[in-house]
């Protein structure tokens, strides 16, 4: 049936290539092992998520409202423990020894000020050595304090000049997994497709079947097409697996359209399979191909925007990153998972930024801020570190 559709030669080489991958024990391992390792390593080990944190409290107030805030903090699933501190020195020590990641300071008049609706301030000290985690904890505290504020039906005064009231879009809980897990789809389809394709020609050269292939009446395009099918199918299968696992095991929503995801995935897989094919053609042995693939996937990965924001790398590398299929597919994947990216965005070829640079964001003004977020921010959006309760 396939033969009738594609012609016997193309069908024969596609079937042969699939068997070659499925029957070669080494190739089989490279299909099963990387996805599993990646799932474990990225899904659980490399998370920057903030959980089980310890927060210090220096409560000079001891009133109703400071108690309320501390109780809510203690009840949050993120916070494992509240440490009572009795002095400024103890607070400093707790931060210095990394006993706590953040400490709240309530002034003696806090509850009184709140009750009198004079406006009150909670001071917070964060451990700057863990800037990422500290900011996320800041977000948690912000929400709790705001919640308290809302509950006591106090009208919020306009924020003082120079500060912005920022809400994280698309990843409201700033769950780090929400950023890493969609990226895994990119990484895993990249690794599985290139590892399969990079072996394909090199294996034939090493085993001596290459000449046999070259004296058969195949046209070059038929050989190339035949060799592209297994990596694309395998990349598709792995991506699909992750597409199913991500919402189920990690609770990361897929908000976009599958009709957009699969065409984008196909384009991405064809692009990386093409690069892998180049490695395979240059290599003479499977070992060389393996090393070549390794040498290739690391920079592809680093320049994808996953490991470091593209905007932060030197301009000449940014140009390279533009040529990196993973960079573009990462934008699409993050967008489809978290942002419900529309087709116009998926297929738009333009500089998009998946990491939002906080400092710049803070200087942007009101209406554009929200708009910019929607377009540009993704898994990790930023939060400010000041808030008011009035």
């Amino acid at each position, binding site marked *: 049936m396939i*033969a*009738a559709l594609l*012609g*016997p*030669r193309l*069908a*024969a*080489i596609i*079937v*042969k290539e699939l*068997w*070659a991958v499925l*029957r*070669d024990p080494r190739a089989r391992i490279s299909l099963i092992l990387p996805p599993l390792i990646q799932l474990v390593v990225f899904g659980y080990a490399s998370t920057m998520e903030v959980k089980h944190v310890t927060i210090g409290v220096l409560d000079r107030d001891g009133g109703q409202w400071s108690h309320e805030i501390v109780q809510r903090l203690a009840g949050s699933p993120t916070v494992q423990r509240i440490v009572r501190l009795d002095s400024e020195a103890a607070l400093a020590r707790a931060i210095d020894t990394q006993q706590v990641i953040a400490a709240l300071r309530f002034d003696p008049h806090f509850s009184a000020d709140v009750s009198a609706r004079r406006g009150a301030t909670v001071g917070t000290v964060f451990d700057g050595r863990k800037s990422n985690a500290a900011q996320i904890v800041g977000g948690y505290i912000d929400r709790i304090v705001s919640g308290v504020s809302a509950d006591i039906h106090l009208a919020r005064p306009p924020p003082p000049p120079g500060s912005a009231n920022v809400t994280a879009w698309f990843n409201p809980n700033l769950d780090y997994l929400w950023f890493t897990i969609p990226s895994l789809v990119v990484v895993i389809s990249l690794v599985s497709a290139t590892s399969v394709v990079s072996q394909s020609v090199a294996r034939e050269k090493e*085993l*001596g*079947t290459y*000449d*046999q292939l*070259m*004296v*058969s*009446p*195949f*046209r070059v395009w038929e050989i190339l097409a035949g060799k592209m099918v297994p990596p694309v199918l395998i990349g598709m299968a792995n991506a699909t697996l992750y597409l199913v696992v991500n919402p189920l095991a990690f609770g990361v929503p897929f908000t976009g359209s599958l009709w957009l995801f699969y065409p984008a995935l196909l384009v991405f897989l064809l692009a990386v399979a093409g690069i892998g094919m180049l490695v395979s053609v240059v290599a003479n042995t499977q070992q060389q191909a393996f090393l070549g693939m390794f040498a290739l996937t690391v920079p592809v990965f680093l320049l994808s925007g996953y490991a470091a924001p593209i905007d932060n790398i030197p301009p000449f590398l940014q140009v390279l990153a533009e040529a990196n299929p993973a960079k573009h597919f990462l934008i699409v994947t993050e967008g489809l998972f978290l942002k419900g990216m529309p087709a116009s965005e998926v297929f738009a070829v333009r500089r998009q930024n998946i990491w939002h640079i906080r400092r710049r964001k803070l200087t942007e003004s009101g209406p554009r801020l929200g708009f910019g977020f929607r377009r540009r921010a993704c898994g990790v959006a930023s939060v400010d570190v000041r808030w008011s309760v009035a």
Partner: protein
Amino acid sequence: MTDPVASVAALTKRFAGQSVPALDAVSMRIEPGRMTGLVGPDGAGKTTLIRILAGLIDPDRGSATVFGRPATDTDRAMIGYMPQRFGLYEDLTVIENLALYADLRGLPAAERRASFDRLLDFTDLRRFTARLAGQLSGGMKQKLGLACAMVRAPHLLLLDEPGVGVDPVSRRELWAMVKDLASDGIGVLWSTAYLDEAEKCDTVTLLNEGRALYDGPPQDLTDTIRDRVFRVGVPGAGRRVTLRHALDNPAVIDGTVQGDALRLMIRADTPVPTAVALGLAPGATLVPARPRFEDAFIDLLGGGPSGSSQLADHYRQIPQTDAPAIDADRLTRRFGDFTAADHVSFNVPRGQIFGLLGPNGAGKSTTFKMLCGLLTPSEGNGSVAGFDLRKAKADARQSLGYMAQKFSLYGDLSVQQNLNFFAGTYGLHGGAARDAIDRAIAIFHLDRYLKVNAGTMPLGFKQRLALACAVLHQPPVLFLDEPTSGVDPLVRREFWNHINGMVEKGVTVLVTTHFMDEAEYCDRATLIYRARQIATGTPDELKAMAGKADATMEDAFIALIEASDLQREAA
């Protein structure tokens, strides 16, 4: 009888995952001062036996004794071991290799100088001491390997197929060197798949599928078939048909083509049939011929296959054409400054076998590759089945079947999957593909291997599968690259029966070989040396050029190469 330097008794070794043991109750002894041959086709167990003697692997049962102690617990400094490959460090020079082996074998510094001098003179490698081992020719590599094994004057020399990849000239030199060593009182084990080398050994152990079929002087074995081997002249193109008829006669247990003659072996205790009964011309006479070791091997195995080829019977008749089936017109290929093939021209009419002969690296493979489209010629033209190699590559490839020297099917794929793939490759599908595959399975008895990975089959079956895949689409032209090197003589006979049968149907065959037995089957052959054709003609014409009565193909080969060298030096 002198004490042996080494001996094995009832040695058995089975490797995991293999259905047949690599060695099955083999006993033999190596005596000092004698050339002991370990002879057998590839996969017979030769390397396993040598590795056990070298103490590298343990036998499952039986004993291996070297210098009176178990092989794993003996003085290994006294063993010179030359493995088949990997024996040399290709990125080191000749002298560095020697020095490395001297270090490994703990040769005292004081003795080093004398040892190196002796070995370099002996192997005639003094001029090349600074050359990288990887850049030596096959013959020189083997000589260096021998020198490395000899660096500490061993008492036992184990040589694993030293003749592989070495042209006949170097092979003779190497043999003379080792023979020299044996006469000094060293025990030498020379393993080989070339049965003609067996005849020159003092004593021979013949291995086949792990079992020792014979152990003793080669002469005693060939004596068993004395008066049963004959030679009969068959002029012209009739020899293939005649051989087929003769082999179909129950009295004939083996037959081969020898240029314009046939060599036939008659069954034991059977009267010699008349010429007419054998299908020969009425006047033809059977002349007794000197029996060879290979004949005796065939006899031990119960005789060769009969003459008819089912493959050929089912093959289509290739239509007659006026144009040559293969045409090479001044084919030239350069790699940088180096010319690998220099104006090679020949043509092969439909229904003939043409041979490309020559030492390794002489340019025969380059010529072969240009004709099958693997290399683009730098100059000159070629055509296959009327298709120009430059303009209609894919069409030319569609009309040829290709069989490589090394097993080049997909070893990880099952036999069935290989057949399916090659059927599709040549555009067969549906019923046509099924018929072709079923026929191949029946003819080559592949049914019990269908689900097995092709790479794990015995060598003979791999060879059958390779041929089956190459002719699934019944091409008019066949390209064979050393098709039967290393296989046992029965498989070789069967193989050539198929080829001869297909040639009768009009198939044209191009074969490269440095295996002189295969050259005898050619209608015409050209000898390529240093990128040039130095002689072209029928096998008998080439033999006549050797200038010696009753010359073998190998004699002709050596004589022609030496003449070419002389001519070049004179120029």
